[in-house]
């Protein structure tokens, strides 16, 4: 069982549950969640996490602003970040990469697709894959 602690950020309750269920099915049980960027900032500061999976379009604070904040912080500057979003345009992907997300998934995602991206990221940062 992988122990990596994930923070799932999405304003859609449905999406949060789907991502969490998928993570559990591939062996990641240690998961917390947040409903938008602001909520995620608070959770990161109070509870911490080792891997951030975030949506882009959210009220209060977007996923991109959350990534900007994380990368500018000392604590989360190198945290693995995977963006899962409905935005599939080339410019969107490039904008997210400029903000240093580790990888990018276009909704609707698949379980093998999510596993592949997480394994790639964990491998690239030197942590063990599930």
């Amino acid at each position, binding site marked *: 069982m992988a122990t990596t602690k994930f923070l799932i950020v*999405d304003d*859609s*309750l*449905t*999406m949060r*549950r*789907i991502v969490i*269920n*998928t993570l559990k*099915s591939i062996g990641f049980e240690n998961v917390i969640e947040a409903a938008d960027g602001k909520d995620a900032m608070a959770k990161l500061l109070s509870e911490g996490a080792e891997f951030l999976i975030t949506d*882009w*379009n*959210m*009220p209060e604070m*977007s996923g*991109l*602003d959350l990534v900007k904040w994380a990368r500018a912080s000392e604590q989360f500057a190198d945290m693995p970040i995977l963006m899962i*979003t*409905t*935005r*599939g345009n*080339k410019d969107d*992907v*490039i904008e997210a*990469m400029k903000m240093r997300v580790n*990888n*990018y*998934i*276009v*909704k*609707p*995602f*698949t*379980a093998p*697709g999510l596993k592949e991206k997480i394994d790639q990221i964990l491998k690239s940062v030197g942590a063990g894959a599930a």
Partner: protein
Amino acid sequence: MKASRKSHVPRGGRPRGGWPARDSLDNFLKVVSGVIPLLDSVKESLEESTGSIPKASRQLDNVTKATESATVEILDLLERMSARVDTLGKAIVGVRAASREGEIRLAAMDALIAPLAMSNPEVHARWCEFRKSPGCLALPASLDAEFDALRTDTMNIGMALQVQDITTQQIAGVSHMIESIRMNLAEVLQSFSEGERTSPPEQTKSRPADPNGRFNGDAEYSRMPDRQEDADEIVERWKRGNHA
């Protein structure tokens, strides 16, 4: 008409070519008196349309909420189903282990009974019959494949519910669009009322916030892998340092 007009002609007489300015004014007044009720009815129908837009927005909101609660119910059921599938899976593993254990015991019995069966045809026949009975058979091998398929199907139903997030964003896009239309109509209506023309219309003071960030009105539900493949290609090129 001409005669009566002539009788009111001032000393200089009727200008050559008639009374163009007065005719035009008459025509203009006729047109205006026809246009005023038309404008009134335009205003009325604008008011009606503007008034019904909040209702349309509320209905769209209700659609989103209803879809979300239905999705939550389906997810609840799927999670319970997954838990049961897991329990069944564990039971099958247990049965397989017991079956293997049974085979070992039967083999030991075979060894014990063989000498007896050789000398007694009836014992031999009964023992063969017993070995063929269903209680001695292992679970069919296809059961594992069926079971995996059930687990995958349950999972895929859950994954398909991503459509709810996507349609919610599409609906939010439509709501934003009709709210903009309502505001534009409200501005037009405001301009009908001269008294309020000097101050900015109330509605323009509360324009909806820039939707960029809150939702993606262009969200699409597509199971085709091409969008992800395109994104992967961009990510790979970016990582290789080729930002073109």
